[in-house]
């Protein structure tokens, strides 16, 4: 008996596997046609005892040292030379720098605007708020582990505050225009919606709702946030909580909606046979724009400010050591206000800044690039980037 025959003798039992895949048939095919399968691919993780981490080094880069003050809400691109782009970056005041250049991390270091902060834990995900970037960190860089996560708010000037969020594997909701973070948590057989003010650290709203949540593996339904409202995605669709009025309601027509929202807007598929996206407003229900999807662009992502949609080409492929094997396909960006589509050169993994610019980081070349997706104008910044896995603001890292 040769080696192949020997291996075949001990192959997984085909009949048992056929039976199992037959059992999953209707579920898998329905999920495929609803296109929610990706968002559902999560695993329940246990919560462990919280351990406080120590914050260690904080380094402030050029802007604060130079003491130069910029005005305005963002740093404009003028299509100038690389040197002028570098100067704009260095000279920007903290708030406009955060808005324009956003935040990213490598390993345990967070780069926010033109400042950076290093922790002794790995960065798992970054969430934009009006007060700065809320950072989720822990012993490992990925979110789907049973270990505890810790949350810290890093302000645009590089100062930071630990936030007491006692939760395990959950998807919190933030918004670049809001100082709050929202989340859901199980309360007996029901669910609590909770809103925390990141400035005071105090709970500002809480209510309890009923709903089935079986589609995801998180401890509670994932949430999103904008203005005075938060939304959580249950089996039956999105449920809204208006904490100014205390009212809750189901958002009609959102069953099988994908987990793709930003700034009070959500995406869904009107027809399972049509991959096109419809982007709607949560509050008014109005259609903002239909985004055509085709075989070149089969997925999308809303910018955190809800103004743009990134059309995804091919997915990036990583090997077992988490090294990039195949880069993502070319990306183009749709302005929801105008419908204009702008393609950016290169095959990059695009994150976002709070102000709606695209954000890419080339760790090998020590380069940060931000582009205006409405025009395609870009600023390329030379920035010494440390080693470790790159996490970009505006991208979901919960899986």
């Amino acid at each position, binding site marked *: 008996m040769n080696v192949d025959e020997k*291996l075949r003798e*001990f192959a997984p039992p085909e009949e048992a596997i056929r039976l199992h895949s037959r059992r999953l048939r209707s579920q898998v095919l329905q999920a495929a046609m609803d296109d929610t*399968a990706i968002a559902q*691919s999560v695993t329940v993780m246990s919560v462990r005892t919280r351990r406080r981490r120590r914050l260690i080094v904080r380094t402030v880069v050029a802007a604060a040292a130079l003491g130069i003050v910029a005005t305005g809400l963002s740093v404009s691109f003028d299509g100038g030379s690389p040197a002028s782009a570098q100067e704009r970056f260095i000279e920007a005041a903290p708030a406009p720098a955060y808005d324009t250049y956003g935040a990213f991390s490598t390993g345990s270091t967070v780069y926010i605007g033109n400042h950076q902060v290093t922790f002794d834990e790995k960065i798992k995900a970054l969430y934009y708020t009006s007060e700065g970037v809320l950072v989720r960190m822990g012993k490992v860089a990925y979110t789907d*582990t049973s270990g505890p996560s810790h949350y810290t708010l890093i302000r645009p000037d590089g100062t930071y505050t630990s936030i007491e969020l006692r939760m395990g594997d959950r998807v919190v909701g933030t918004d670049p225009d809001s100082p709050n973070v929202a989340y859901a948590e199980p309360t007996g057989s029901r669910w609590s919606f909770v809103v925390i003010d990141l400035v005071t650290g105090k709970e500002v709203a809480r209510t309890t709702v009923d709903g089935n949540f079986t589609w995801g593996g998180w401890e509670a339904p994932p949430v999103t946030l904008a203005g005075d409202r938060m939304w959580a995605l249950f089996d039956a669709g999105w449920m809204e909580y208006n904490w100014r009025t205390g009212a809750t309601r189901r958002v009609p027509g959102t069953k099988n909606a994908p987990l793709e929202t930003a700034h009070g807007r959500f995406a869904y598929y009107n027809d399972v046979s049509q991959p096109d996206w419809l982007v709607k407003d949560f509050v008014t229900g109005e259609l903002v724009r239909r985004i055509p999807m085709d075989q070149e662009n*089969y997925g999308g992502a809303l910018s955190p400010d809800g103004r743009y949609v990134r059309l995804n080409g091919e997915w990036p492929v*990583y090997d077992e050591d988490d090294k990039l094997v195949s880069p993502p396909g070319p990306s183009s960006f749709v302005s929801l206000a105008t419908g204009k589509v702008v393609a950016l050169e290169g095959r990059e993994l695009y994150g976002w800044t709070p102000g709606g610019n695209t954000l890419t980081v080339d760790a090998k070349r020590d380069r940060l690039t931000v582009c205006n997706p409405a025009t395609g104008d870009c600023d390329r910044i030379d920035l010494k980037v440390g080693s470790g896995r790159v996490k970009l603001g505006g991208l979901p890292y919960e899986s």
Partner: protein
Amino acid sequence: MNDRERLELLYDTFAHRVYAYALRHCGANDADDVLSETFAVAWRRIDVVPEHSLPWLLKTAGNLIRNRRRADTRRTDLTTSLARFHHEASSPFDEVVVEREHVLTVLERLTDLEREALLLIAWDGLNLVDASAVAGCAPRAFRARLSRARARLTAELAQPSPLSSDVLTASVHKEIQP
């Protein structure tokens, strides 16, 4: 045949192959998700799924598994990954169980690339060209890798099983207790 019928046909023909591939790479807990995600991608990209579909599906499943970014910490060994299905279809003969575990253990000692080369052929039933496409290398390079893997597995299997005869005896003894 419309797109929906084609997706259903793809599922009915290849789902078990995709599932078996996912099972050995990421274990039973994640294999359901990978199966689901693979057919979600197939549905979205039904226009580009080739007629000769299995290598494309396995390649997609492999990409999804890598993208899950869990392999380095949550990868389970083959014995654990396949345990549930081997148990359901288990032979009552403990000798078979012991030999199977020996083979799986030896497979674990190979490099990931060597093991994958062997199993794409022996378990997934791919020919050399299709297997090289799934493995992401040229057929010539895959052939060389496969030859090395076969030689190494043959040598490893020639070594005595680390599972002692005592284990087998104890197991059989337990089986025949009244």
